[in-house]
């Protein structure tokens, strides 16, 4: 569907990613879902094609496009039928890398960006803890001043790419006496740093191709040169990055919805019952038509929100709307898609079965629906 927000460049990028997804990802996702990991070679191939430099400014070797480009990119990854594959990539490009590109120093960019762009260096973001998720201000991981650096202690929970990442951006309390919003700092912690360990991969309902880990920081020392941005400003960085993260996640969710609807329409047009294709049943085709209308509307809201962010507007309300709306919508869409696949929809071999499990996280991760609705309500 054409959109006023998508110009020729973005359309060309969309096509390139779509082709890559179709040829290099879709045929392999069954295997990656079983092994629980996307192969490093795929990430490096994506890196070599410049996929990880989409948002990186030209002076650092990327193509320097905006939020809208992330939306296009994520949307096509969402069509891969494997949310786990999409999130492995998006956590790197849209959840973690922005900490460096937006708030990192020139010295830090020179150190890490080249590897991040080739895919040799995969990144993750560690905010959530066992006792703090929606309530980011409640995190308990601490960083104490120690020589020319900081000593970190704490536990991070549900960290995507946690077990495979070479660099993790960790949020920690640096001023225990201040309010969290004035006492939190982001640290870049490299894999292999003494005291820094990832537990086994956590077993999940969906996103099976994605590694999710618990990270333990046991007296981990990092130098001042690993502090991202300014000390005690971390809470603002997290809040700022949430905006990009949420629209990228919901763009991927729109891709999931569209792929599921397309597959379901094709299925019910073929599948015969009571002497005719299921498509002849008005109840079925009208429900699918309504879901398509909802997805089309939601897609334009996501585009519009990305556009607002690219104009430098404060779009917290619109971002929260996208997250609340699409998080819930994707669950309804996949519920119906499984339903209309009948027994086949419940089988592991049918992609919508996996997608049904994958979309469940869309209304929880990166800001639960209820939290998002309160963000909207505050602005009404």
């Amino acid at each position, binding site marked *: 569907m054409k959109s006023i927000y998508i110009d*020729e*460049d973005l*359309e*060309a*990028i969309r*096509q*390139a990613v779509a*082709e*890559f997804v179709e040829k290099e990802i879709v045929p392999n996702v069954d295997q990656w879902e079983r092994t629980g990991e996307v192969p490093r070679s795929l990430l490096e191939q994506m890196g*070599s*094609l*410049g*996929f990880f*430099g*989409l948002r990186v400014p030209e002076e650092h070797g*990327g*193509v320097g496009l905006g939020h809208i480009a992330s939306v296009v990119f994520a949307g096509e990854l969402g069509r891969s039928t494997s949310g786990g594959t999409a999130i492995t990539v998006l956590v790197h490009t849209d959840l973690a890398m922005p900490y460096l590109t937006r708030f990192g120093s020139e010295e830090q960019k020179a150190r890490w960006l080249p590897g991040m762009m080739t895919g040799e260096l995969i990144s993750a973001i560690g905010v959530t803890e066992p006792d703090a998720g929606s309530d980011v201000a409640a995190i308990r991981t601490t960083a104490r001043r120690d020589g020319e650096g900081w000593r970190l202690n704490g536990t991070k929970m549900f960290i995507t790419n946690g077990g495979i990442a070479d660099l993790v951006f960790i949020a920690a309390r640096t001023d225990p006496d201040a309010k969290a919003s004035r006492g939190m700092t982001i640290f870049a912690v490299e894999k292999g740093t003494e005291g820094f360990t990832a537990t086994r991969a956590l077993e999940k309902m969906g996103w099976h191709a994605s590694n999710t880990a618990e990270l333990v920081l046991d007296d981990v020392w990092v130098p001042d040169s690993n502090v991202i941005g300014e000390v005690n400003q971390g809470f603002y960085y997290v809040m700022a990055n949430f905006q990009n993260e949420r629209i990228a996640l919901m763009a991927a969710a729109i891709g999931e919805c569209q792929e599921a609807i397309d597959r379901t329409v094709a299925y019910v047009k073929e599948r015969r019952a009571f002497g005719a294709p299921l498509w002849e049943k008005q109840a079925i085709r009208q429900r699918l038509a309504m879901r398509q209308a909802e997805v089309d509307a939601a897609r334009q809201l996501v585009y519009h929100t990305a556009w607002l962010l690219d104009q430098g507007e404060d779009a917290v309300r619109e971002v929260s709307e996208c997250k609340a709306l699409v998080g819930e919508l994707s669950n309804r869409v996949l519920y119906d898609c499984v339903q209309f696949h009948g027994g086949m929809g419940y089988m592991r071999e049918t992609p919508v079965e996996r997608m049904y499990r994958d979309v469940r996280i869309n209304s929880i991760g990166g800001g639960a629906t209820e939290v998002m609705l309160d963000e909207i309500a505050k602005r009404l």
Partner: protein
Amino acid sequence: MRVVACVKQIPDPSTPYKLEEGTGWLLRPNDQVLDDTDRYGVEMGLQIAQANGGTLTLVSMGPTGSAQGIRQALAMGADKAVIVDDATLRGADALTTARVLAAAIGKEGFDLVITGTESTDGYAGVVPQMLAELLGVPSLTYATSVEASSDQVKIHRQTVTGYDVVTSGLPAVLSVTAGVVEPRYPTFKGIMDAKKKPLETLTLADLGIEAGPAQEVTGVNPAPEREAGRKIEDDGSAHLAIIELLEQKKVI
């Protein structure tokens, strides 16, 4: 070394094709895509140009439209593109196409012209040979593997039973089969740079030639419906019936 790749923009093959009432000509939408077949020619051209310190120019005939298909080929790494777009060329047949391409390529100058073997929408499969004749150079066709230097090209030419080894000096026209090389994906940088590359549009007047459709479509008939297959009920001897059928078809 001046390498030219012929590339055709075609309606997206994943959408149904529509013919114009009356003329029977294919309707070409504004957004056409690069013919997949031509990706092999572009990739081959890039490899040869890069190995021999040359340039790769794309030459195309047809309605420019959004030029999306040409940009796809530029994004892969070609240096520039020339499109011959002229209203009088609507409904052009293979010979007309070859004459126009030859004029554009002759004007551009070339050492090696690379084409696909058969386009996806027209599939006449004769443009390369016609081009070679019109340009007055040897034609090496149906290449399944290619070695090229700055003054010679050597190919494996696919035959019914195997392949011939064919060698020629340059200039020459070369048609490559799908799979001769693995076409690269465009990089994001390639995509963004594509729109900054020269894209020249020529009319027939610019080429100093006259051309137009030399063939007429006298009728278009839908392909006959496929007949239903024969069902063999298994009463314990179905395998014998199947064997007999396969023998009749000389499969076994």
